[in-house]
Each structure stands twice: as C-alpha cells, then as structure tokens.
C-alpha cells in the first residue's frame, strides 16, 4: 500500500512538473485539484508513515487549495474596502502573466458586461512573441486601462469630461465629452477607444440585434446605445467595472479569468490580496518610465 502511494506521489510530482513546464498555469490550477483530490490525505499519511515526522515531499499546491480561495478573499477585501470612505480606497489589478493562457475570456466578458459595440474592447489580450525561430517564446498580456495615478489622458481633456476619482479610477462623463479624441492620443497604453457609432447589425444587415438594445450598466447609467446619442461619438475606456465594484462585485474580467490570472482589490489595504501580490519582487508595470504610475501590476 505504502509503495503504491509512493508511486502515486512520484507520478503526481512528475505530472506537476510536466504541467509546470509545458502547460500554462491555468491548466495547473484547473487540472491539479482534480488530480489531487482525495490523494492528498493519502500523500500526507504515506509521508508520515515513511519518516514518522511529517510530510517529506510536499507537492506544490495550487493556490485555491492553500487556505482561502482567492475569489473569496478578493470579495472579502472588496467588502472591507467598501466600508472605508471612497478616498481611502485605491483600486488596483494584478495580472499574473505566468497564468494567462490567452483565452480572451476576460475580453469577451468585458464586452458582454458593458455591451460594447464592434471595434471596442476595453481589455484586449496582447500576444507578445519574442525571439526568432527556433528560439521563440510567447506570452499573453491582457491590457485594461492602467487607472494611472498620474493619468496623462486627464490633463489634456479640454472640457473636464474625464477625471480621476478619489478611489483612483479614471472615468469619463459621456454627456460632457465632445469627442475630440485628444485623450486617446495622450494615453501611452492605447487604453481609450473612440465610439464611432458602429453596430453589429451594420455588418450583418437588418435591424439591431437584441444584444445591442440592452442597456449598458457603465457608470450605473444604463444607457441604451443609439446612433445619435452618447456614448456614440465619445471616447470610452475600462473603468474596472465601477458599477460592479460599488455593488460589492468583482470586475467581470476578474471573475471570468479561467487561468485565475487576474486579481483585483484595494491597494491601500495591506491585508488585501492585490497588495500582497503587487509588492512582490516579480511585479512590474507597463512603461514605468512614462511616470504614469499605473495601478495595474503584472507578475512574471
């Protein structure tokens, strides 16, 4: 029996090594719980049996198995932050590039959540290929708005239609925006989009599809998009799903991330998961040299 368990430990370790090397983190976090379920107790028992003191070989476990589930923790972080006055919150995102598999679930979830029209994606996923064949590597970089601490997009707006809220989220007042698009040119991350007024039905003929008649919950305004009214003719951007946050929900991209590569929370709370992750030495931000102080951190 003990021998059989030792073999299973080895198999498990080999499989995990395989996963770590050849599959992305998402598969590890998705498959490993299934692989290990029910086995862990036996693993621990076998170790005790062998050494008499405790586990000799502790396989690296996916985070979900290590204490609190991250979604649960982020929700608690969110609740804690919402108890504080708005100016004491600092919403931030951490994206673990080792876990992102480039599935675009976040892109799609964001589009569905905010009822975005063709040609607008608040959170595209960039595929970065490095090196030349045969020494090629590839990584996926989701790119929401960085909610910069020093947002260059804000100061250029001639009519004060866009600003940084006390909690750090950069928002746009669609009724105030004149659609000059100066802010798009000023964003170093291309995180702003111009709503030119396209509808999916323009490309497929016929009248607007049911999806296009749904109100967008953005900024809690529930606007139904029409050709002759805002947000058509405006600039639009990711707002960390502000409408969801204020309801105590996580942003759509965070919940939909199947690789569990995206984390969200309050940077002003040292107990929060994002604070913990963002302070790691392997965290970096895009174009730090621009001095924009992004609040989206990437882990590598």
């Amino acid at each position, binding site marked *: 029996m003990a021998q059989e368990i030792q073999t299973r430990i080895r198999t498990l370790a080999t499989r995990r090594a395989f996963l770590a090397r050849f599959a992305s983190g998402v598969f590890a976090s998705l498959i490993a719980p299934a692989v290990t379920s029910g086995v862990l107790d036996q693993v621990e028992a076998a170790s005790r049996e062998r050494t008499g003191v405790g586990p000799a070989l502790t396989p690296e476990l996916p985070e979900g198995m290590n204490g609190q589930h991250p979604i649960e923790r982020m929700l608690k972080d969110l609740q804690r932050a919402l108890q504080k006055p708005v100016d004491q919150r600092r919403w931030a995102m951490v994206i673990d590039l080792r876990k992102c598999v480039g599935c675009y679930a976040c*892109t799609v979830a964001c589009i569905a959540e905010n009822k975005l029209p*063709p*040609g*607008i*994606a608040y959170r*595209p*996923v*960039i*595929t*970065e*290929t490095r090196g030349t064949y045969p020494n090629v590597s590839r990584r996926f*970089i989701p*790119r929401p708005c960085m909610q910069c601490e020093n947002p*260059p997009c*804000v*100061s*250029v*707006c*001639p*009519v*004060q*239609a866009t600003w940084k809220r006390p909690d750090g989220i950069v928002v746009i007042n669609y009724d*105030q*925006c*004149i*659609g*000059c*698009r*100066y802010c*798009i*040119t*000023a*964003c*170093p*991350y*291309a995180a*702003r*989009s*111009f*709503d*030119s*007024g*396209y509808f999916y039905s*323009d490309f497929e003929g016929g009248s607007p599809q049911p999806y296009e008649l749904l109100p967008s919950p953005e900024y809690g305004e529930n606007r139904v998009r029409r*050709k002759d009214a*805002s947000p*058509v*003719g*405006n*600039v639009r951007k990711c707002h960390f799903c502000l409408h969801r946050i204020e309801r105590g929900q996580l942003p759509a991209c965070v919940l939909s991330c199947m690789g569990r590569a995206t984390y969200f929370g309050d940077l002003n709370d040292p107990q929060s998961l994002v604070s913990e992750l963002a302070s790691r030495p392997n965290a970096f931000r*895009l174009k730090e040299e*621009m001095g924009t102080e992004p609040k989206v951190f990437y882990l590598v």
Partner: protein
Amino acid sequence: MSRTEKILWGIALVGFLAGIAGLIQRFTGGHTVAAYGTYVPWGLWVAVYTTLVGISIGSFLIAALGEGARIRALQPLTGIALLTALAALAGGLLAIWLDLGHPLRFWKLFFSTSPTSIMGWMAWLYTVYGILLLVLIYLKWARPTSPLLRPLFGLGLALAVIFGGAEGALFGVVSAQALWESALVPIRFLVEGAASGMALVLFLAILLGYLEPEPGRFLRWTLLGLLLATAVLEWSEYSTTIYAGIPAKVESLRIVLFGPFWWVFWIFQIGLGLVVPIILLALSGERRVWLGVAGGLVAFTSLSAKLNLVIPALVVPELEGLRMAFTGPGLSFDYFPTLSEWLLAVWVASTAALIFLTAYRLLPAMRARPA
C-alpha cells in the same frame, strides 16, 4: 470682376458643390464614414485644421508687421492678408468642428474649459483672435485712420505668435506620441505657418494683380528666410531623432521617410514645398510669375508637413502586439483618408476660399491698388 477672380470663384464653387457630398455623408454616417478611429484617432481633418490655422497666422503676420510694426513695404497687402487670415481661420475651425464626435457640444469648450488643457486654452485664443480679426477688418474698412488700429495689430501680433506656438504645443506636450513630443514642434508650427500664410498672400496678390515691387521683394526674402529656417528645423529634428534612436520615434520617422507614403514627404513636403520654392526665390530674381509659383507651391503643399506630423506618430502601435490583439472597425494602425474625408476637406477649403472671395468682393476698401 477680373477674369482671374471669376476663375477663382469657379474653382471654389466646384469644390464647394463636390464637397457637399462629403458633408452629407458626415452628417448621415457620423464618424463611420471616416478611416480614423481608436488607434489612429486623428486624420486628414486634423491635418487640414492645423494647416489652415497655420496659414491664418502667417497671413495675419503680414498685416500685423505692416500695420503694427510699421513695415511700410507690407502695408499695401494689409487688406488681402486680413481677409486671407479670416477665411483660413474659418476653414480651420470648420474642419475641427466637423471632426468632433459631438460638434453641437462645442460650447462646452468655453463653459467648462480645463485650465490644464492646451486645447482648452486654444478655444479661447481662437475666439479672441477671431474677434480681433473681425474688428480689424471692420476698422480697416470703415475707419482706416483709427488710432486703435496700431495697438490692436500689435496685440494681434503677440497673439498670433503665442497661439501659433501653442498650436504646435498641442502636439509637443503629448509624451505618449514620440514623434510629437519635442520642443521643436511649436517652433516648427510657427515657422511653417508663417511661411505658408505669407506664401498664400504672395500667391494671391500676384494672381489678383496687386503685388508692387517693394512688397514683392520683402516677401521674397522673408519667405526664403522662413523656408531655410524650416529646412534647418526639419533637419535638426530628423537627424537628432535618427541619431538618438528612440525606437517609437525612429519608427514614426521611418514611416515618414520610407513608408508607403514616402512620396508625401519627398515629393510634396521637401521637393515641391521646400527645394523648388527655395531655388525659385533665390535664383529667379523678382519675376512675378516665379514668385507666384513659389508662393503657390509653399501654400498648397503645406498640408503635407502637417499630415507627416499628425499621422505617422499615430500609426505606430503604443504596445507591441496591439495590432493583432483585437480587431474591428477603427482598430487599424493603417490610415488613409476615405473619399468622404477627402470630399469634406475639399468642401472646407472651398468654403474658406468662398469666404475670402466674398469678402474681397464686398469690401473693396480691403483691396490694394492694382500694381
């Protein structure tokens, strides 16, 4: 009405009527009729706007130097220069107004001006400048001996220099666009604007038969100086960019010099806009026909320099891989104006021409004596 004037009316009317198609498309199709969008948010209309505003500043400088700084040689051209300045300003503002996502909200520029935005400041500067132009035209027409003229021209001179530079600063302060972010851009705007405006007045004065030898000589050397200054500024900007090797900036410059629209730079901006006029102005004496050709070339190719500033900066992706990250309308880093954009640009230019021709006809006092 002279034959030349009739021809100018004819050309302007044809352009105006043809361009109406672009205007109708803009109003019925909104911004979906244009090729700009999210990745390249500014296109032909912004380039037209900056060009026309530059021309306005340049032509106003002639009037302001003549009347404000008392340069006698330029005084016979005051009237025509003021009308050119007004028409070009009107055209430029029309272009940028139609470029707005919500043109009917333009009034917000005045009631919610952001003190940190150069564009916000520009709205006020344009307004003051536009009113000043109207007042000066009125005074010049109705009270040509008014003591107010000189101080107002002096004020206008200061204003033209400030907002000529500010127009360039609108681009120069954008650190996200490597090609724009340069202290030379405001100076280039000022010098190129002065050159294009003066060149247009020179061209029109010759065409309409009002150029006397003295203003001709003055404009010839001034324009030559401005073109040489433009050449030095462009050389300085481009050579330091290449040497410094900042990737995004070099990439934009590579697109300007060797990209798919290399000919806009080499043929229009450098060849016809700089080299040929410099040769003509330097070598062909004061023969009107050559002065007129030089002036016309500088004025009509001035759009190329603005196109080469506005667009190449925007067609370089801010992040590597963005080009393919998500696709859809407006998500393209390749930009070429659509037919609607061209038509609307023609309509704007023709409208400016018609404003000039109408004012020229209605205000005979603004015309100098025929040479």
